[in-house]
């Protein structure tokens, strides 16, 4: 048991890799521009980090990866699978069909038809109606005719009773083959039919991207002789096994932000802080509270779709080292565009013709870049007043974001991470101190590397005071089981939080119980 682990972050601009030992010392770290084929960027950064660490590929035991590939695919409406939606619950819900209220272009890129059939449950788990298998069979034939590539199944109250979703999945497998991708809503989202269905549909449309990313990673590791167990980072900052990640890709959507916040916490040694991660294309401002990520509350829109799963509560700014700077009269403007992974071709300091924030920071001596292809002399004669104005804009937008996320009226320490974070000044309003930890440009990969594995149960239960303890015991056991299924080593799993919320405007003792368990990767 060497205990070496490799943490990777495949971002929009850079692919980062860190090698850590069992005591979480960083032995090697490297960065390489993300390549369109993903795999080259992985190879290049991985090889560099490994050779720095002098750890042999065969000694790596765990590989933990964070990626924004799924989020990017949704935002760009690219590489999406055509999804058939099955909703079980008639006569409920007929007037608000699947894909309702979706952005038209996203719907056009992934909708493959829908059907609402009879079935579903009451909140206490009693069946509301039998599953209408005949109608379901007809819908499946129609999907087959239309050539759908993935199917999402959502049943009324499936977070309480899963039988109808499972039965429908069996029918899909029989009709489409055992390997056909099926998403069951109860495995993804919590209470709220429309929001849970939307989450399941988003997941179903991401299976192709997830397969590509996972396949590329597996090939890359195999080629280098790495036989480690492999994990993907998810929204809450925990990791799940590669096989889980290809099944539930939508759960990786917030992992970029989660990894940078956790990585910043680890690198700074702080349990309470504000984290500012300035990357190439975007900036995240988030908080760590008592060592935990703060999660979003209520409905969250992802790529314009209303969902209800929890993602890290961060303010994300369309702003990064690759953002394009323009002159607007006497003022500086930062455009929405970023040159992304083409920074090393397009930016002025690399001989390109695009004036980026990185150029502005370089010209003012705020940023040091090790890349030999980057030459500061190319920036001689640049308008430094404009550069200063551009960086002042960045500072202002970051300070506004700090105001939005900080807790209480106390000022906390801001931890600056990310490759372009050095362009921010020594003093920021709203924080007591600015801290730049070593290895800060690799915070995301570090956040992935240190991830633990989690399991979560979020269900409705009906119980009186006398059955409370017994119920909680069952829910806790289920959460532990989930964590183990996601790849946690059985002996290491602990319950982190139990949340009980009584249902409003209801006379019976219905309580929503949420339990989360954490463990070390096995």
């Amino acid at each position: 048991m060497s205990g070496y682990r490799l943490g990777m972050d495949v971002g929009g601009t850079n692919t980062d890799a860190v090698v850590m030992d069992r005591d979480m010392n960083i032995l090697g770290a490297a960065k390489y521009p993300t390549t369109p084929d993903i795999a080259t960027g992985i190879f290049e950064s991985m090889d560099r980090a490994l050779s720095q660490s002098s750890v042999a590929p065969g000694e790596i035991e765990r590989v933990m990866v964070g990626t924004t590939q799924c989020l990017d695919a949704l935002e760009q409406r690219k590489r999406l699978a055509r999804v058939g939606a099955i909703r079980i619950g008639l006569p409920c819900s007929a007037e608000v069909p699947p894909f309702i209220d979706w952005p038209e272009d996203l719907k056009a890129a992934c909708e493959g038809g829908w059907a609402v059939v009879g079935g579903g449950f009451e909140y206490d788990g009693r069946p509301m109606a039998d599953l209408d298998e005949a109608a379901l069979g007809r819908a499946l034939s129609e999907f087959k005719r239309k050539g759908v590539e993935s199917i999402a199944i959502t049943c009324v109250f499936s977070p309480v009773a899963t039988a109808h979703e499972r039965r429908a999945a069996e029918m899909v497998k029989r009709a489409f083959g055992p390997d056909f991708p099926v998403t069951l809503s109860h495995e993804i989202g919590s209470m709220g039919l429309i929001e849970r269905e939307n989450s399941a549909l988003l997941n179903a449309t991401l299976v192709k991207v997830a397969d590509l990313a996972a396949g590329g990673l597996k090939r890359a590791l195999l080629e280098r002789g790495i036989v480690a167990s492999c994990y993907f980072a998810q929204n809450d900052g925990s990791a799940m096994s590669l096989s889980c990640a290809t099944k539930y890709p939508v759960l990786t959507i917030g992992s970029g932000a989660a990894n940078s916040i956790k990585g910043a916490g680890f690198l700074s040694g702080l349990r309470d802080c504000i984290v500012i991660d300035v990357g190439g294309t975007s900036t995240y401002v988030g908080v760590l509270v008592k060592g935990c990520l703060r999660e979003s509350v209520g409905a969250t829109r992802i790529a314009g779709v209303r969902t209800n799963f929890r993602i890290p509560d961060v303010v994300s700014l369309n702003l990064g080292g690759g953002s394009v700077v323009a002159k607007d009269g006497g003022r500086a403007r930062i455009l929405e565009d970023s040159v992304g992974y083409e920074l090393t071709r397009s930016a002025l300091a690399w001989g390109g013709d695009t004036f980026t924030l990185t150029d502005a920071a370089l010209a003012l001596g705020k940023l040091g870049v090790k890349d030999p292809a980057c030459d500061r002399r190319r920036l001689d004669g640049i308008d430094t007043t404009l550069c200063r104005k551009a960086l002042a804009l960045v500072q202002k937008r970051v300070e506004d974001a700090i105001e939005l996320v900080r807790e209480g009226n106390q000022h906390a320490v801001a931890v600056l991470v990310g490759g372009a974070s050095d362009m921010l000044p020594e003093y920021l309003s709203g924080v007591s101190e600015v801290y730049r930890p070593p290895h800060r440009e690799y915070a995301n990969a570090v956040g992935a590397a240190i991830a633990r594995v989690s399991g979560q149960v979020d269900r409705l239960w009906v119980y009186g005071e006398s059955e409370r303890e017994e119920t909680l015991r069952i829910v806790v056991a289920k959460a532990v089981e989930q964590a183990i299924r996601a790849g946690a080593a059985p002996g290491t799993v602990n319950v982190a939080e139990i949340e009980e919320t009584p249902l409003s405007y209801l006379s019976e003792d219905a309580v929503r119980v949420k339990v989360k368990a954490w463990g070390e990767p096995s």
Partner: protein
Amino acid sequence: MYVDLSELEALRLGATVLGSGGGGDTYLSYLLAREAVKKHGPVRLLQVHELPDDALVIPTAMMGSPMIMNERVPSGKEALTSLRTVEKQLGRQALATMPIEAGGLNAFTALTAAARGGLPVVDGDGMGRAFPELQMCTFHVYGVAGSPVAVTSEQGHSVVIESAENPMLERLARATVAGMGGVGYIAAYPMSGKQVKEASVAGTLSLGIRIGQALLSAERKRSHPAGALLDAFAQSTYGQGMVLLEGRVTALERQRARRVTVEGHESYARQTLEVEFRYENLIARLDGRVVSTVPELIVFLHYETGMPLLTEELRPGMRVICLSVPTPEITVTEEALAVFGPKAFGYDCEFRSARKDGWR
């Protein structure tokens, strides 16, 4: 005046404000109303004074847990079925429906029923806000019989309840709703045009629309949302409300006490506001002194977006603006306060109005 798609969108916000922290998330009921209006056309809004004295009006509402409703998404025809059932009981056709509760998701229940039934909707309701029980309404306070009440489930099961006592109707209807799985759609308090004029809070739907429009326009112009909202109320029968505090949520207890604590900042620095809630916000204490109580609206706006917040959306660290808005005269008479004043919610304190009691 007609309620069309843009009015529905504005009402989503306005109804949440009137919900005073409760009344349920409006998204789904808004979607149902939107689909109904798309299919059947805009809904005519009848002013209370336009109603003939002998017209029959049958109010409609959803009853039960909004969370269960969000799971067992209704088809949208349930409330209309209940209305038709009450018509059958009475042997008369309704001229219009109206909300029992204009605060929260129920602002849309009556609009959906109206759109689907080709009926106008009366611009008014029985609460002027959101309340948790069926008899907590001006209809009951001013002598309208709730009976017969029809309750319909999504599966089309219907129950008719008759009783001369309105609180008993609440108990029986609540039990029926539990039997139906936690949510039911009701028609109740059938009344004449004359009774509507005497016993309802007039103008609440159009007020909800105006409040929503004011918030949306403040958002577009990046002007202060609280000011826009208070102006909209000031020009209505509600009157001039006020900002109690701007600050940050520092503590939140949801289990037993159900209380949120906000520490003021900037011009409100060193002041502490505590708001007790059950489903709706009920009591506001500023530095330990009760300054505003139910039925006054106690409303939290999200500081950054200006959007109204449900109590379940509050969380520590959030920046908020807390407002108190008086409610119309008809909701604060002695008879009304006996039914839905602070004592009706188990608080041992008198009704207080932030504005009228001149605490600042």
